[in-house]
């Protein structure tokens, strides 16, 4: 596959600077702002920003399926939750708790779940895929909820936060600052990696499955295998988000394996703009910020999901590309 991309003048690239220069400048500016943010923000908002990044990573992982392969997953809570419980297992069993072991366990758990789900669900398309992923995530939820001996059942698991270590070189406690930077580094790294993957020939095949599955198969690509890999890739990064969440909050609870988490993930994607990778992070930020502001203005009891649900529906009908939809083509170039 050697095709030269057609040069198009996008409105953002008219200034004469190359596309790459603008992209990397923008990227560095955003990262710099996020690095400096903890110095400016009060503790509550610092923690809030870190959580937005984690939810953003979860939503970004789901974007691989929704935006690039064209399969809506309603079961991302399973991968997120398995990442969380995997990390919890490592932190509880091994003493002293080790950060990298937690990452390893979490990713192993999420990947195993993803392989299992992918094997069955990728045989189906469209709504059947969506329903199957939903059902699978509920299976994991029921298992985790009822297997009280191992998972703590309804109460979940509580553990201590591991130290930040680089083996043999470095060992320190996480402060609010270093935790934020650690999360930021993981999310930014995941973004760059996924962006690279989605622009690679592999990513192109995924996008061609989205555009026309029958034709992709006719060209000779093993569509099913590509789909399985894309679900696994997605599950892997969702698991990474779960590990980060566990490290940040020092607990794992069955609530996060429940359908609500999957639903939120889909909402972040739709609001922010599918097929952009950064869009879901923006969507997560928008959603969490709107929720926080609504509950501050109208009180804790205010049903914030009613206005946000309306926004969600309006966006699907009138702005199906989401908030960042206008930049979709440019971001993927």
């Amino acid at each position, binding site marked *: 596959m050697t095709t030269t991309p057609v040069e198009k003048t996008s409105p953002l690239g008219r200034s004469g600077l190359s596309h790459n220069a603008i992209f990397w400048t923008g990227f560095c500016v955003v990262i710099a702002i996020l690095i400096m943010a903890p110095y400016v923000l009060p503790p509550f908002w610092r923690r809030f920003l870190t959580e937005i990044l984690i939810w953003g990573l979860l939503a970004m992982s789901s974007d691989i399926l929704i935006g690039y392969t064209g399969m*809506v997953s309603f079961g991302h809570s399973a991968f997120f939750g398995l990442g969380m419980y995997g990390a919890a297992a490592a932190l509880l069993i091994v003493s002293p708790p080790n950060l990298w072991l937690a990452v390893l366990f979490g990713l192993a758990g999420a990947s195993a779940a993803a392989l299992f789900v992918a094997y*069955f669900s990728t*045989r*189906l398309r*469209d*709504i*059947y895929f*969506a*329903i*199957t992923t*939903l*059902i*699978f995530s*509920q*299976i994991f939820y*029921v*298992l985790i*909820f*009822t297997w009280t001996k191992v998972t703590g059942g309804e109460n979940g698991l509580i553990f201590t936060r591991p130290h930040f270590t680089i083996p043999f070189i470095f060992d320190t406690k996480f402060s609010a600052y270093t935790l934020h930077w650690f999360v930021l580094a993981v999310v930014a790294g995941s973004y760059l990696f996924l962006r690279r993957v989605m622009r690679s020939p592999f990513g192109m095949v995924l996008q061609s499955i989205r555009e026309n599955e029958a034709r992709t198969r006719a060209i000779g690509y093993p569509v099913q295998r590509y789909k399985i890999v894309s679900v696994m890739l997605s599950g892997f990064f969702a698991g990474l988000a779960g590990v980060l969440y566990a490290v940040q909050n020092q607990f794992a609870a069955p609530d996060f394996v429940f*359908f609500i988490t999957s*639903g939120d993930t*889909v*909402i972040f994607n*739709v609001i922010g703009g599918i097929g952009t990778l950064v869009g879901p992070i923006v969507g997560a930020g928008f959603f969490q910020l709107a929720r926080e502001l609504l509950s501050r203005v109208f009180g804790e*009891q205010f*049903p*914030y*999901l*009613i206005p*946000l*649900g*309306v926004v*969600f*529906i309006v966006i*699907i*009908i009138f702005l*199906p590309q989401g908030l960042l939809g206008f930049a979709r083509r440019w971001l993927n170039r």
Partner: protein
Amino acid sequence: MDIPWDLIVIQTVNGIVTGMILALVASGLTLIFGIMDVVNFAHGELFMLGAYAGVVVISTTGNFWAALILASMIVALIGAGMQIVTLRPLIGRDPLNTILVTFGFSLILQNYALWQFGPVARRIPEPITGYFDLFYLQYPWYRILIAGLSAAIIGGFWLFLKYSKFGVWIRATTQDRVMAQAMGIPVPWVLTGVFALGAAMAAASGVLFAPLVGVNHTMGLDWVLKAFIVVVVGGMGNLVGSVAAAIFVSLLEAYASIWVSPAQAVIVSFIVLILTLLFRPTGLFVPTPK
């Protein structure tokens, strides 16, 4: 291991009763899918809303049957409004959009119910309170009545589809939307009507079911999941298949809960769904298409 015959008989009755309610919910869902290509994620919330509407009507009038009819009508109107405002603009777009929009609606309705009625479960008293003896149990007649009523509603609905003018329109729209439009059938309004009917059926089952467990704002998700399973196992858009699948799945769950906890018995129906999707993706109770 002894086979607990008494338990099996009791669970058979229980399974059929739940199965009939489930069939009523699922037939609305399958109708909406078969005719409109809409996967209605908010169906469980319509069920819940029906139950709450029933609670409100009963607290003002005190009459269960008035509640059943009024709640169905209220929810039918809500459904029609939902369809006109949000689903109509999406006709012709990818069906996945309809899942997302109805999912948005389920969030709104669920949180509205929580906000309006609070987190405490409400109860609807049983309209008839007689019992009969089933082994060591006093089995309420009301449960048998529910099963009968559900069957009657589904049967009436089937006759309606088969013989009434609107029923013929619905079937014509299912077969060929463009041709139906050309013959002068008001297709957009048929679609609205179908959605309203499906919503009314969900609401009716909500009111019927409410006396058994009480009404709360989270009951929707449970039911929509079960109804999805039933609709897929029975074959999307297939009314008879849905009824058969509803009873089949409910019976399996009822038997499973003899040995494991009810929360885990749900997994049985998940497994049925997965096996169906793998081996008979068009549904268990329909002939495989050639």
